[in-house]
């Protein structure tokens, strides 16, 4: 399976903007265009800023809710958020660091410009002399030429629209995945029970293992629902199951054993080599389940979802066919 892994050109811009500031007390605020929908984007962005600026996570705030102030972002989809918002944030950090480095150099009276950021300090790579980050920010602000520790950056991925033949390098990054699935089919009821799912996925550089696991497990359960239960029923243009009682999304009780084997790679376009991971786990699932059902009973159900009724009918038809042949 191949899927976009961040920065897919579906709209004229797939970019994301960031405004970053550090206040005179060393607190950092990230105003990002990207949204938090439970995937953990806030955590990952704060982790990146902490890594780059040596500021404790507790002192970092991510603002992503107010469209009056946040810069452009196209939305949380196409497995793009860590990729584009991460790159955007790193771009803003780079600009801000140039300002901070300049001031730190002045204050430490050193001519070179290479610094490390750690434990709230800016440390000279060469001499190991250091100065508190918040102090540098204050000096920037309160001495001439007075300046704030603020930077803005807009990241636009290198991807291009598809051409007329739907070809082209449409995404900033691509994700690859394979799944092997074992199912048990109840021939009395037609129920397909997914037992084990083995997932191998190219996930780029892992930024946060726990959140990665969450994306994989959630994606897979959605994939299982897509394979077995989720269906919008229509009659004469009306939706018959417009509620989650009858539109059946699976619940935590239905989650199979998931065996996840992350394949860690280094994506040259992604922040720290990371890439999008969210959708890839749900794409191979239905096909693998359909193949497993076919393997178990030698029946083919090719329209989703593979409901118990379709399975039972396919079994009945196979029996009938056998009788006719005999």
């Amino acid at each position, binding site marked *: 399976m191949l899927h976009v892994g961040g920065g897919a050109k579906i709209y004229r811009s797939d970019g994301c903007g960031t405004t970053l500031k550090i206040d005179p007390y060393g607190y950092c605020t990230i105003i990002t265009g990207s949204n938090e929908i439970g995937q953990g984007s806030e955590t990952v962005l704060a982790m990146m800023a902490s890594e780059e600026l040596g500021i404790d996570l507790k002192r970092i705030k991510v603002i992503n809710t107010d469209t009056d102030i946040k810069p452009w972002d196209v939305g949380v989809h196409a497995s793009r958020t860590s990729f584009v918002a991460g790159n955007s944030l790193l771009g803003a950090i780079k600009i801000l660091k140039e300002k901070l480095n300049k001031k730190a150099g002045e204050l430490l009276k050193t001519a070179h410009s290479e610094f490390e950021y750690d434990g709230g300090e800016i440390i000279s790579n060469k001499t190991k002399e250091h100065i508190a980050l918040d102090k540098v920010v204050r000096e920037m602000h309160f001495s001439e030429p007075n300046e704030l520790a603020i930077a803005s950056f807009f990241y636009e991925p290198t991807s291009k629209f598809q051409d007329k033949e739907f070809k082209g390098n449409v995404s900033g990054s691509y994700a690859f995945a394979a799944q092997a699935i074992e199912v048990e089919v109840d021939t009395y*009821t037609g129920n397909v029970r997914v037992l084990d799912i083995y997932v191998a996925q190219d996930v780029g550089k892992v930024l946060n293992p726990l959140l990665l696991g969450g994306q994989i497990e959630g994606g897979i359960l959605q994939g299982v629902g897509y394979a077995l*239960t989720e269906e919008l029923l229509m009659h004469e243009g009306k939706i018959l199951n417009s509620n989650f009682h009858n539109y059946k999304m699976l*619940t935590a*009780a239905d989650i199979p054993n998931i065996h996840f084997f992350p394949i860690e790679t280094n994506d040259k376009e992604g922040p720290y080599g990371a890439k999008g991971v969210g959708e890839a786990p749900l794409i191979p699932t239905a096909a693998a389940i359909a193949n497993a059902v076919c393997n178990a009973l030698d029946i083919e159900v090719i329209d989703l979802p593979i409901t*118990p009724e379709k399975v039972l009918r396919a079994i*009945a038809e196979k029996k009938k066919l056998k009788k006719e042949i005999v």
Partner: protein
Amino acid sequence: MNFEIINPGTTKELLGAVNKLQKEKFRFGAGCTDLLMELKKKPEDGLTIINLSQVKDSSFSGIKKSAKGMRLGAMFTAHKIVVNEEIKNAFNVLHESAHNLASTQIRQVATVGGNLCTASPSGDIACALVALDATCEMLSTTGKRREINIKEFFIGVRTTAIGKNEVLYGIAVPANEKKTKTIHSNFIKIGTRRSMECSVVSLAYHIQVNEEGVIIKAGVSIGASAPTVRFAEEACDFLIGKKFKAISQKEKEEFAEKVLSYASPITDIRATSWYRKEVLFNISKSIFE
């Protein structure tokens, strides 16, 4: 949704409230898990809800064991059934039906009485209680108690034998036979997911076997297959006197046919009538496999 609400604290107050409202439109609310959904779909004007959950009366909300069997108050919750070891040991079908109902959260408030009085053909606890040959006990505003067998309790889809001046007070499950050695008791619920699922078809059975392995009492009922939960009497009679472990393939199928004869399922968005019948036949056979 707009309604008045009355919160009686005792059974006397409850009966008083029912008496006072005889000429008005009123409904009982127990766990309200069915009631609220219904009122949301079809709001009624000028309605009063009599909230049963504040009534302090152990006969109404507790459980009592006697030589005759077990009596559950109508307000006994699905959760309380699930955690009750005695129910699990003696009447596993009841345990399983409650365990398969909705989700942990709903089970905390959903009551046995509500499950019966809703009279849904797919009521899970109702289906188990029919297989167990339970008795429904009503209390009227005059203070009189009236008992009827659960088979007579369900009249049609969402209609029961309760009178307007009555409340369902308790449900009595008869004790297992003295000669019973082994009990085959279970609830088979067919649906597509493992929780928050309304039965597409259900089968409840409680089969008692003596020391010689012979079936001496059998209760089999079906849910979501007819306008009401149904007791498959002929299928039960068919089993009496047979050795549980020695039931032949032919007998299994004969039994399943008899169960099926009580089913007149509809086709709806959950499944077709064909599927419901097919599955009911198969799971009926599976009892002996």
